């Protein structure tokens, strides 16, 4: 390396999306130092403004794809996934403006940590350097643990500790996997690792296997793929509904992008056991999560298992590995994002500070029984989200499922496609269980007031927006798909 480094070779604009949010987070902390007890709506608007600014910068980015000595990689899927992350965050942060006041939303640090978490995810997706990915992953995870623990319930702390311990184990696995690949190839860049391994025809196989297994364990934790999914329902149940919804979308898309970068090279190796491992993971994750969701008594836990099964469904895109499948992954996740945003916002609206319906659970199915007689609109909207999650046409998630299944058929994964269809059919059962409670049972509550304690105009607007997107998905599936496919092809996946 020469002693002289030109400034333009650093490609500083590639760092701008992260820099804006770091600045935003520091700005919020500094404001809190100067002026105490500002209103939560001020912080919320400020955070959303920074995110929107960031989104603008990201969409307008037209520099080189690599920067900072190759540690940053802003390619198509990086931009696409950052857009998903930012849009999801811009919708989930305003959920803090609920009718009830919660202590965590009065703290400036909540918003600062939220922005830092987004920065972590951005680093994770816009790099193919294992060290930068690891730092991004840890930044995001540490912020997320703290945000969960801030919620003022005993279970929130339990959830945060559970998530933290499991997350620390996963971080260890990630580091071990990076170590093995570094020892194998002398590089921590995924594309260099790929080049070196290809040249050597993926020998020694046992070392590649060891590295892959640890990587699957680490990413599987973030994506809640079956052997390492056990934390999901407990953590979702303990954390507040907005954070649970956030967890079901944003960390997973970041994990999918890393998995896509990483496994694409391994799938290309034509090593048959790798395909079997991924195949097994996809099938077991989908099926087991679906079957466990059938017996859940709490809607939030049911949604947790459903998000595991959706993740398993989408993981099949990485197994298939064609451009169509990878584009399908992003399409699916964009549609799923709006639907899950709506479903978890609804849970947030019907939150009541006491467990009125069940000692153990906060949102048991019986809570929703006969809801249609008390609040027809609310019950109908919830029903729309359930139909969409179940994959009924013409609601949003159906198009994602259709596209992924057709990708599976096109590349010859007929059995996989059959399993995907069967699983979609199983999933209908537990979503319809909630529908039956809401529409066919007699109400348990006398008044609708207990369901509305947390409803505010902001929440209603967000739910309304999610409903409109879910209902009218058929109109813009085509344009989204075109954009997504363009970006995926641009980055060579």
């Amino acid at each position: 390396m020469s002693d002289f480094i030109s400034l333009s070779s650093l490609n500083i604009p590639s760092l701008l999306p992260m820099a804006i949010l770091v600045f935003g987070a520091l700005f919020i902390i500094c404001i809190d130092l100067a002026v105490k007890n500002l209103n939560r709506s001020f912080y919320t608007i400020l955070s959303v403004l920074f995110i929107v600014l960031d989104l603008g910068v990201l969409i307008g980015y037209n520099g080189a794809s690599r920067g900072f000595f190759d540690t940053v990689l802003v390619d198509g899927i990086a931009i696409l996934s950052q857009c998903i992350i930012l849009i999801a965050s811009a919708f989930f942060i305003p959920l803090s403006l609920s009718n009830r006041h919660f202590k965590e939303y009065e703290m400036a640090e909540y918003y600062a940590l939220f922005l830092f978490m987004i920065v972590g995810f951005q680093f994770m997706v816009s790099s193919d350097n294992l060290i930068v990915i690891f730092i991004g992953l840890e930044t995001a995870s540490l912020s997320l643990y703290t945000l969960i623990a801030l919620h003022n319930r005993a279970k929130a702390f339990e959830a945060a500790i559970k998530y933290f311990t499991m997350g620390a184990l996963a971080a260890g696995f990630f580091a071990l996997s990076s170590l093995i690949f570094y020892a194998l190839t002398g590089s921590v860049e995924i594309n260099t690792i790929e080049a070196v391994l290809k040249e050597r025809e993926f020998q020694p196989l046992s070392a590649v296997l060891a590295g892959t297994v640890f990587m699957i364990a680490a990413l599987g934790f973030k994506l809640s793929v079956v052997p390492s999914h056990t934390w999901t329902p407990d953590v979702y149940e303990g954390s507040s509904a907005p954070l649970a919804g956030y967890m079901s979308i944003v960390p997973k898309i970041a994990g999918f992008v890393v998995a896509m970068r990483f496994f694409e090279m391994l799938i290309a190796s034509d090593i048959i056991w790798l395909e079997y491992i991924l195949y097994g993971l996809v099938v077991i994750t989908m099926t087991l999560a679906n079957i466990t969701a059938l017996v859940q008594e709490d809607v939030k836990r049911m949604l947790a298992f459903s998000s595991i099964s959706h993740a398993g469904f989408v993981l099949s895109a990485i197994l298939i590995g064609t451009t169509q499948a990878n584009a399908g992954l992003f399409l699916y996740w964009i549609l799923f994002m709006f639907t899950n945003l709506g479903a978890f916002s609804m849970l947030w609206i019907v939150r009541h500070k006491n467990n009125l319906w069940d000692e153990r659970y906060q949102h048991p199915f019986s809570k929703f029984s006969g809801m249609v007689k008390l609040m027809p609109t609310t019950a109908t909207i919830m029903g729309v989200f359930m139909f969409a999650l179940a994959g009924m046409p013409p609601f949003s998630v159906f198009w994602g499922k259709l596209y992924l299944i057709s990708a599976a058929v096109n590349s010859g994964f007929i059995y996989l496609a059959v399993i995907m269809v069967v699983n979609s059919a199983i999933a209908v059962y537990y979503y319809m269980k909630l529908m039956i409670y809401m529409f066919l049972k007699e109400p348990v509550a006398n008044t609708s007031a207990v369901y509305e304690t947390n409803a505010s105009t902001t929440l209603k607007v967000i739910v309304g927006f999610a409903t409109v997107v879910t209902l009218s998905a058929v109109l813009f599936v085509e344009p989204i798909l075109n954009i997504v496919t363009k970006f995926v092809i641009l980055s060579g996946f």
Partner: protein
Amino acid sequence: MADIVFAILAIFALVGAFGMISFHSPIHSALSFIVTILALAGIFALLSAPFLFAVQIIVYAGAIMVLMLFIIMFLNVRESNFPKEPNKFISMFFGSILLLPVNIFIVRAFLKMPEKSMEIVEDGFGNIGSLSMELFTRWLLPFEAISILLLVALVGAVVLARKEES
């Protein structure tokens, strides 16, 4: 000569690690862990990485272990507070047998790594100058990203600690 020193340091590291999990009192475990850390520092010195050697002693043996000892003493745990571990060594034995296949697999993977020269690198490899040159040019971004990570940890710890009082 280097092999003999390595063997001695490795034995110290293993004995320290074994002591850490087998001692009953947390203080003894922590002190035993220091032996492992110092032995690892010695191995770093052997590999001509003087900076890592110094950092290992200052940060791990110095700062982190003192912090751990401080916390253990601060909590003031008594002998009666310790959990009874009647079958500790039997369960440790079976636990290690259970993990044996994984370990054999990893060792095999490392043994099959492509041949590299295992000679100790010449001077100037691991000293502060060359290390900081790498750290502040090629690895500048990860280095700065770690500062964000530490800031997050700091803010998170302060927020959670403050929550207790109100």
